[in-house]
């Protein structure tokens, strides 16, 4: 290394500044997350008064006890689990074969199908006509309203198609055709076993979408028995909170409200953790897969 290559003083300072900036960004993102965890196991009085600001104070698991005894949350949890498993299965069954067919150069009409799918990314019927279609199909207030109106996402089909185009060797397909294998046989015996990475990525994308989604449930479901977790959360986290902040009441009403508020405060942070738990658990292991999915998409995007 000669002196021209060794770092100059300004370069060193800039490098340090970059590291400081990255650390700062990390802390900003991290703080609310740590706060929620601490608040969920702290005494609500300390949380509400601001005495608890980083580490848990007056540790109590009362909030979690209430959450686990709450029937609506359990019901929502089970419903969401069901919608996620069913929905993701449908998503994969629609996406993977379609993406494979679109990746085949000898598939007449592939560009036409692709155009038909991609157009819907930019032009759509809009909320009301879509709602009317779902309604006229008789899907309102059924589990199918949670899984059919979003049975596939164009972007995911595009990503899976790029995967097939870039990783399945053409020679393999040609050899299979020469051996007289049908497309079905080839897909199930040869292509699928080679496609586990993309199936995992797609499953995760769709799965997280189902787990976190609330809007389909909001517009298509009114039966509380069918409510997914996110709608139950909406009642606890958004509607109650809004009500308590927007009303001005006095006397015994206020006292009743206060105790209710205390209760809400105890479970508020706990439900955030409980509802996000499955994703928190898989996240560190699967972050790489998610990033990979976005990367594949960006190749073609």
């Amino acid at each position, binding site marked *: 290394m000669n002196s021209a290559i060794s770092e100059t003083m300004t370069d060193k300072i800039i490098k340090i500044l970059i590291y400081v900036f990255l650390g700062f*960004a990390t802390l900003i*993102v991290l703080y609310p997350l740590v706060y929620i965890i601490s608040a969920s196991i702290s005494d609500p009085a300390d949380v509400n008064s601001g005495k608890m600001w980083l580490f848990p104070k007056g540790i109590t698991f009362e909030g979690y006890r209430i959450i686990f005894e709450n029937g609506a949350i359990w019901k929502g949890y089970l419903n969401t689990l069901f919608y996620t498993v069913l929905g993701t299965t449908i998503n994969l069954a629609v996406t993977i074969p379609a993406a494979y067919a679109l990746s085949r150069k000898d598939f007449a009409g592939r560009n036409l199908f692709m155009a*038909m799918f991609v157009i*819907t990314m930019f032009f759509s019927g809009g909320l009301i006509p*879509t709602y009317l279609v779902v309604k006229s199909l008789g899907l309102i207030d059924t589990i199918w309203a949670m899984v059919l109106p979003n049975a596939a996402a164009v972007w995911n089909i595009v990503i899976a198609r790029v995967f097939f185009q870039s990783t399945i060797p053409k020679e393999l397909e040609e050899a299979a055709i020469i051996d007289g294998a049908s497309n*079905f046989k080839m897909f199930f015996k040869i292509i699928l076993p080679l496609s586990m990475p993309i199936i995992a990525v797609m499953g995760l994308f769709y799965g997280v979408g189902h787990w976190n989604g609330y809007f389909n449930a909001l517009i298509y479901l009114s039966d509380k028995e069918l409510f997914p977790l996110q709608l139950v959360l909406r009642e606890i986290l958004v509607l109650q*909170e*809004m009500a308590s902040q927007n009303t001005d009441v006095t006397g015994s009403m206020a006292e009743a409200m206060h105790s209710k508020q205390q209760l809400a405060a105890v479970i508020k942070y706990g439900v955030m953790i409980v509802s996000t738990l499955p994703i928190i658990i898989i996240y560190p292991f699967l972050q790489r897969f998610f990033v990979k999915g976005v990367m594949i998409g960006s190749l073609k995007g």
Partner: protein
Amino acid sequence: MDSNTATVLTEEEKQQTPKSRKVPTKLPKPKKKNKKILQNWQLYIFILPAFLYFFIFHYIPMYGIQIAFKDFIPSSGIWGSEWVGLEHFKRFFDSYYFWDLIKNTLGLSVYELIIGFPLPIILALALNEAKDGLYKRTVQTVTYAPHFISVVVMAGMIIAFLSPATGIINHGLTLLGFDPIPFMSDPKWFKTVYVFSGVWQSTGWGTIIYLAALSGVDPQHHEAAIVDGATRLQRIWHINIPALVPTMIILLIMNLGNIMAMGFEKILLLQNPLNLESSNVIATFVYQAGLLDAQYSFAAAVGLFNSVINAILLITVNQIAKKRSETSLW
């Protein structure tokens, strides 16, 4: 279809013997294509579910847009309802809330674009300078994480943190000697709350696509620049940023094309009667008018107006980008 036929034929030709190649007249072409279709009929079964899905849940609703020009009565159906021309559009344009909706919709989007667009680029450039290792991995793991938080939990966090009496942000403000701010009930604050919570949630995840572009930069450029005595900043400015321009343009086109259709799920959750003045956007209005008040035709008309503006914006921006930079969506 033209390009299709071409691909199919070249594939066909590869398999043909040189002898049969000598007689490529126009007549046999369709036959060969039919043969190919027959041979690959199973591929049509592969694509059938996706085709049905897009047809039923995307193309039929497009056909259903006609209710925007009708007086839709559920019992008469789409066909049976009477045509009313542009009546619903007129009613919307003449309404007292028309300009408020436009102002809020554009205001929120533009604000979000100005703040939210550059930040992932800056963070990605910084991440790209950091050495691979525990520190960089930690920064990435932490900043990507909020992307996976559901919009409902996000709204819950915003409301809890910003509460005037119990929220941690206002406790901090009081500690610094300021008065607590009623963020959620003061219309002045709505847009800022919306935009900055979005920055918190999606800046980290937004870096991935730029990092992918940066990983494609040839290290030799940097080595040559170092030999020439370029500083780190000069290298970022002259090598890394130009490498990101195509990605930036694509994302900018997509963002501008969506400027009238931002993430309204979050707006809907953060909306309350007190901040409605600045939180009511076209999309939430369509939800309110169409699904809660059941004015289907009117809401569909408002939605259609929104989509048309979006489409015009997308096409215009794409055209401009094509002319100026050769990078475009199509």
